[in-house]
Structures are given as structure tokens and as C-alpha cells.
């Protein structure tokens, strides 16, 4: 795997898009480094890229931070890690909706959300940031990766 650190202007562009969308404080990402492949931006611990360059056969370092598309999509793994710092564009799920979300289902929200506009949003249940969805009106498209879907649970 060729690991090339993001140039600072590329990093600024990507971060500013996500900071703008979710209201993160920029400092949240200060202690991390970023690199990109064709389709994804990856995130890892500060200094890890330089250390990893000296290691033969590295296949993965850290994990995917965001995926390129029409809009930049932040990944579920990152939202579960830093989603608590998001100040906007999250939808608050009730118990029934949270269960549906974890089970991988799309949801028609019971209430309109004042904390989110159409587009990529964080699905939040209590203090837990479950993952990412795509909001259009009251309809929340579930973007939880298949491997994370849990169909039996007990909360």
C-alpha cells in the first residue's frame, strides 16, 4: 500500500467540508494524520505515517475517514469515535428507531428534526452516535455497513 500524507490544502478542504456539515471543532482532528487513496481518505495517529513507511508490506494504517462521492461521506467508524463532538446535522432517534437503525433498516422518523438538514447526518441515540444516514425530509436512509448490523439485541 502506498501511503502518502494528504497535502495540507487537501486536508483543509476535506476537513472544512465535514466541519461545516457537522459543526466539529477543528481541534478534534489535531492529533491525527490523514492520507488518501483513490476513493477514500484515511485517518491515523499522528506520526504513524512516517513510522509505517519504514515497515514492509503495510496493507492498512488506521481506517477510512471519509469516502468521496457527490458529497464527502464520513464513515460510521469515525462517527462512532468522534460523533459526540458534532454540534449539528444529527438526528435524535427514539428507542424504536434506534433498534431499527442498528438492524440496518431505513427509517421514517416520527418527528421532524430541528438539528438536521437534508444530506448526510449522524444517527444519535441518547449519548451514542450509532452511525451515518442520509436524511431527506422524514426519511432516513441507513448507511450502516452490513458487518455492523445487529438483528438481535437487548436494549
Amino acid at each position, binding site marked *: 500500500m502506498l501511503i502518502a500524507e494528504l497535502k495540507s490544502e487537501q486536508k483543509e478542504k476535506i476537513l472544512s467540508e465535514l466541519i461545516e456539515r457537522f459543526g466539529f471543532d477543528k481541534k478534534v482532528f489535531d*492529533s*491525527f494524520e490523514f492520507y488518501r487513496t483513490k476513493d477514500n481518505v484515511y*485517518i*491515523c*495517529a*499522528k*506520526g*504513524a505515517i512516517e*513510522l*509505517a513507511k*519504514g*515497515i*514492509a*508490506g*503495510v*496493507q*492498512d*494504517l*488506521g*481506517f477510512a475517514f471519509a469516502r468521496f462521492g457527490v458529497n464527502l461521506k464520513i464513515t460510521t*467508524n469515525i462517527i*462512532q*469515535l468522534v460523533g459526540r463532538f458534532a454540534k449539528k446535522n444529527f438526528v435524535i432517534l427514539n428507542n424504536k428507531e*434506534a433498534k431499527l437503525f*442498528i438492524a440496518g433498516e431505513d427509517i421514517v422518523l416520527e418527528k421532524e428534526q430541528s438539528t438536521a438538514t437534508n444530506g448526510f447526518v449522524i444517527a444519535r*441515540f441518547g449519548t*451514542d452516535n*450509532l452511525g451515518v444516514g442520509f436524511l431527506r425530509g422524514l426519511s432516513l436512509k441507513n448507511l450502516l455497513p452490513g*458487518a*455492523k448490523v*445487529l438483528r*438481535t*439485541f*437487548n*436494549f
Partner: protein
Amino acid sequence: MKNEAIIPRLFRERYNKICPNPKQFFKIIQEPLKPAIRINTNKISREEIISRLEKQGWKLKQTPFYENGFVIENAPNDNRIGLTIEHFMGYFYIQEVVSMLPAVVLAPRSDDLVLDVCAAPGSKTTQMSQMIGNTGLIIANDNDFMRLKPLKYNIEKCGCLNVAITNIDGRVVKGKFDKILLDAPCSSEGQIRKDWKVLSRWSEEYIKTFSNLQKQLIKHAFEILKPNGTLVYSTCTFAPEENEEVVSYLLDGFGNAQLEEIKLKDFKTSEGITEWQGKRFNPEVRKCIRIWPHQNDTGGFFVAKVRKC
């Protein structure tokens, strides 16, 4: 108990000889193991998750040697801990108590370059990641391509940003490392309480196959360890051929390999044995530790801590 009948005679004979209180040993290996979890401080504070789980009725008992390890003493309404929202969120990792030992003994620091030689599925890698505060770098290697997927999944689920994955035969990994964890593939006798089928594939030939591989792995791991670096060798088996014999092989082959004492507070262990089936091992292997299941009501384990002088 029905299980008694399928403990191979040879298995019984072997461990009658070296196990402290074999009667208790053969009794407890037929009893199921209590589940245990490791709080994932990469994602949540210890206090917050304990409070959340206890409010739901989970009764947790901290492991004496590691502040983030907990045995589940009691479950609310017979629930399974793996089905909670806290598990979905990756706030804890289900991990056997004794499996938390090697990382604790290795004690990685954030300025160490750490190699986990046989990392999949990632229990000890993710533990070390949180031990160094999700900083620095851990190389999580596994030679089995099929096992990289669960390794990657667990690294992501635990939010580990300080881990790089490699897929190389542990006998030819290149580089120089400050700390190396070699949790070697083994005959897994210590897992009997979790998986009774371990005994169905058990034989002395099976043990010997692992022993040969382990010697090659430990030799190479020591070669790629930096001077003054630390190598922790561990297995989840009782077989001396896979434990003291492997460590003794290293000590006899490398004059600069030195075993260090392992001290664990309030956790019973036995010292390594120095003789087995007529073979005498390097007397230093006494410094290795054996954990027999009946000593602490856990699975079985073996750990050695080696310094390169």
C-alpha cells in the same frame, strides 16, 4: 459429568504429573468459563461504561492485574453482554481474562514501535492500542489472509488509529522493533472451558507440530527485536513442548536473551517447569508463568518475558 469420559487418557496422564492439584484441574476444565470484557478506553471512559452496565444490572468484577478487565459475575435476566448497545458501539471488547495478560506483561509505551506477530483476531492488538492512548504505532501482523478481515473489523470497531496491518509469515517479518508480542499459534488446551472440541483434535503429534513452528517464530522474533527490547511469548496451552521447551530453545541459542520475572498482584500463577519427559530445560524458565484454570477460575495460559541484552 459426561465430558469426563472424553478427556484422553494421555492428556490426563501428562497433566497429572505437572499440574498443582490435578483433581481440581480436571474438575474445573469441565465447567464453562465466565464471560469477561475489556473496557475500550479508546472510545469511552472506564467510569462511564461501568456505570452504564451496572445500571442495567450487570455485575462486574475487576481483574486484579488490569484495571480495564472485568469478569461478568451476573447478567440481568440472563442477557448476553454481546447483545447490548454498548457492545455494538465498541465500548468494550469480549476477551478472556488470561488473554489480557500478555499485553499487560509487555507494557508497551507510546514511543515504542510494537509488533504483534500473530495478531488476528486482534484482542491483544486492540488492547495495546488503548494502553498507549491510541498514539504511536503497532504493527498487527498475521500470516493468514482469511483472518485479516476479523482483525481489521476489530481494529475499526475499537477505534484504533495507531495500528497498521501486515500479512507476512511471522518467520520472515522484516524490521526492528522495541517490543514484540508473540502470542503463538498453539494446541489451545487452555481453551477447553470455552471449546470442548479442543480435545477432539488433541494428540502429542499435534503438540509437536506447533512446537516446531513456535521455535522458528520465537527465534525470528528475537532476531528482529532491538537491543534492550522486550519480547513476550505466550500461548493458551499447557503443553511444556510448546512453552518451556520453546523458551529454553531461545535461551540456549542466544546468549543475549534474558528472562525477566513476571509479578502479578493478587493473581495466582505457577512457575515454569524445568524438566519434561526426560528433557531438562534451561533452569531460567522457572521465571515463566503458568496459569492453571483452577488457580483463578480462568482459562489456561503461559507467559514468558524476554529481554535482549
